[in-house]
């Protein structure tokens, strides 16, 4: 069996991602606070989707390269959660969003999207550090006993997957070489970005 090829697909298999990012029209952060959706969520409520947008944009903000919003990450997650995840995980992530909002209120006295960038970042980093990690996986095979992870691990996994497998990033930022030809075994890195997988 083609075991090796599954390496690069391992996260795909577990946390697959959606539609061509170029199809997204994105959404807007108004006054760096409550995002206004210009798409209709299928799984999340509009409020949840707005919160999700703020979270994913905090994980992967727009810099000189596109951020999560611009590459359609929240819309993808809305679609992927419905199609790929079991009801239990769906609920875990839904509860997780609620938890983030409550944490923001308790810690900073406001809703998450209204927090400053520093506040949002520190809150998510805290969750990230506490979320635990996935077991080792090679060739698509889970090779250690799975321990339950916090919802943030799942959410971050989906966010990164959606972003880095989007056309904008795959073609425009990472080095896109769909038909490499000869394999060059050793090559000076020279500061280059990773190849698109």
């Amino acid at each position, binding site marked *: 069996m083609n075991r090796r090829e599954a*390496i690069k697909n391992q996260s*795909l*298999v577990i946390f697959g991602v959606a539609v061509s990012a170029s199809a997204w029209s994105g959404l807007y952060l108004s006054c760096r606070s409550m995002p206004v959706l210009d798409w209709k969520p299928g799984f999340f409520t509009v409020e949840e989707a707005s919160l999700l947008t703020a979270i994913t944009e905090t994980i992967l903000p727009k810099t000189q390269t596109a951020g999560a919003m611009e590459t359609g990450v929240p819309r993808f997650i809305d679609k992927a959660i419905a*199609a790929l995840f079991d009801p239990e995980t769906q609920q875990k992530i839904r509860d997780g969003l609620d938890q983030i909002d409550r944490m923001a209120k308790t810690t900073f006295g406001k809703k998450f999207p209204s927090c400053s960038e520093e506040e949002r970042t520190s809150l998510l*980093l805290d969750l990230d550090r506490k979320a635990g990690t996935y077991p080792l996986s090679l060739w*698509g095979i889970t090779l250690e006993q799975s321990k339950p992870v916090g919802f943030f691990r799942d959410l971050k996994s989906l966010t990164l997957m959606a972003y880095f497998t989007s056309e904008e990033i795959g073609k425009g930022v990472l080095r896109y070489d769909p038909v490499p030809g000869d*394999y060059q*075994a050793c090559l000076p*890195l020279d500061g280059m970005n990773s190849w698109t*997988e």
Partner: protein
Amino acid sequence: MQQNNFDAIVIGSGISGGWAAKELCEKGLKTLVLEKGRPVVHVRDYPTANLDAWDMEFRGALTREEAKRFPVQTRSGFVGGDNKHFFTDDLDNPYIETQRFDWIRGNQTGGRSLTWGRNCYRWSDLDFEANKKDGIAIDWPIRYRDIEPWYTYVEKFAGISGEKLGLSHLPDGYFLPPIPLNCIEQHLKKEVEGKFKGRHITPARVAHLTDPQPWHLELGRGKCMNRDRCARGCPFGAYFSSNSATLPAAARTGNLTLRNHAVVHSILYDEQSGRATGVRVIDAETMISTEYRASLVFCCASTLATTQILMNSLSSRFPNGMGNDSGQLGRNLMDHHYRCGAYGEHEGYADQYYKGRKPTGLFIPRYVNLDRLTENKNFIRGYDYQGAGGTRNPWSRGIQEPGVGAEFKESLFKPGGWNMGLMGFGECLPYEDNRLSLDPEKKDKWGLPLLVIDAGFRENEMKMREQIKADAAEMLEVAGFKNVRVFDEIGGMGVGVHEMGTARMGRDPKTSVLNGNNQVHGVPNVFVTDGACMTSASCVNPSITYMALTARAVDFALQALNKRNL
């Protein structure tokens, strides 16, 4: 009825069936190939071969709805949204697992030759003599010299890339240039070979055209482009499959008839002549039963399916299954055990990278129990390793590492550190009570009795795994890898997808099902040349050996036919 008569029938179109078809057709026999699954035409039926992640709705992930059709296939980790069409629908093709058995299947033209791992290693007399030396099961009826020219013959046609090592227990073959080792693999090679006498690290020997020869180009096959999207089907025909190589070679003779949706019910037996007369087939879609006649039958349905057919081929002469005078039919089921080894990360070579997604990694040939000096008293037989990883960590490392924000995002555009996994593959002994049977009552939708699988790994395999882990960790540590973790998650038997045995070759009809030419004892015009024929398992991937045994058996069958001995 004229149209149902052929010179030869081949059951199955996978690696073994494809070879049987090619050899029989090229020798001038009108040959019918029966394939249980749907047609898959090379290139035309590889719908995802050229898609990028963003071209797929869920970027290659299997949806929950889709996964419901594959409760067994997904145990393997190989099934994704991008290649699910090459795996068998488990709900339509049930079987019974007395012990967990992961039967990974690909019922379609080309079978699992579309999704195989493409590693090809010759067996040696270390393997062919093993049962005899250990006093286990029965002796192989052949030795390396019997199969050696056939290895060369099939390697030349299939196209195997690899490096010659000059090892007697892993013989060199007819090789195209190897797919080179990258910086971290070369580093590991230097360290391990320098510190452990008798251990070698070499590029995996794989069925990829790195330098296509005229006979490859003639069939429309081309050079490997290092896309590493092999399991979706290769639009360049760069890796060997029935679809890209043997079936087109068979078809161009004008002697091939390929019939899809052909569920083989049984092989027909004539009591008077003591010969098989043909095959009974049920059309998977119409349920219509048809008999095809031929004077020669090659059974290449894959290990378990082949034995299922033989068990269901009942007659007065063979009330317990065709060729089962010995009672060995269905027994001695083997698979390789793996999912065991070590993983680590290396901080060096930060300024080095590579270009291309090479479709394979490194290979460490067996080095234990070769002789008295390398003896390990805890177990018999041995193991090898395949490199799993050996790349720079891509963006997905960010899923596990704490981090959010602009700097984190930008850092993930750059390659991360190097990683290396060493995945052991171990030999499994033939145990008589690791066996298949037919359920007396339960039937599938075509009315065929369900296969019952009752098999598992034992003490020798488990003890071997301890050494596999210890050695893998030691090699990585010696080579300066950090955070070395051992892993051991055996999964079900079968998940190695190297099922072997259940209709073993042997010298004595009282203890074996096949003779040294893969001919069924008592039914001289029926041959079994897929994994069912194996008498022991070695620790190397078996497909190239099936290819060689198949070509050899066809050659023997044709000589016998010409002498009117079949």
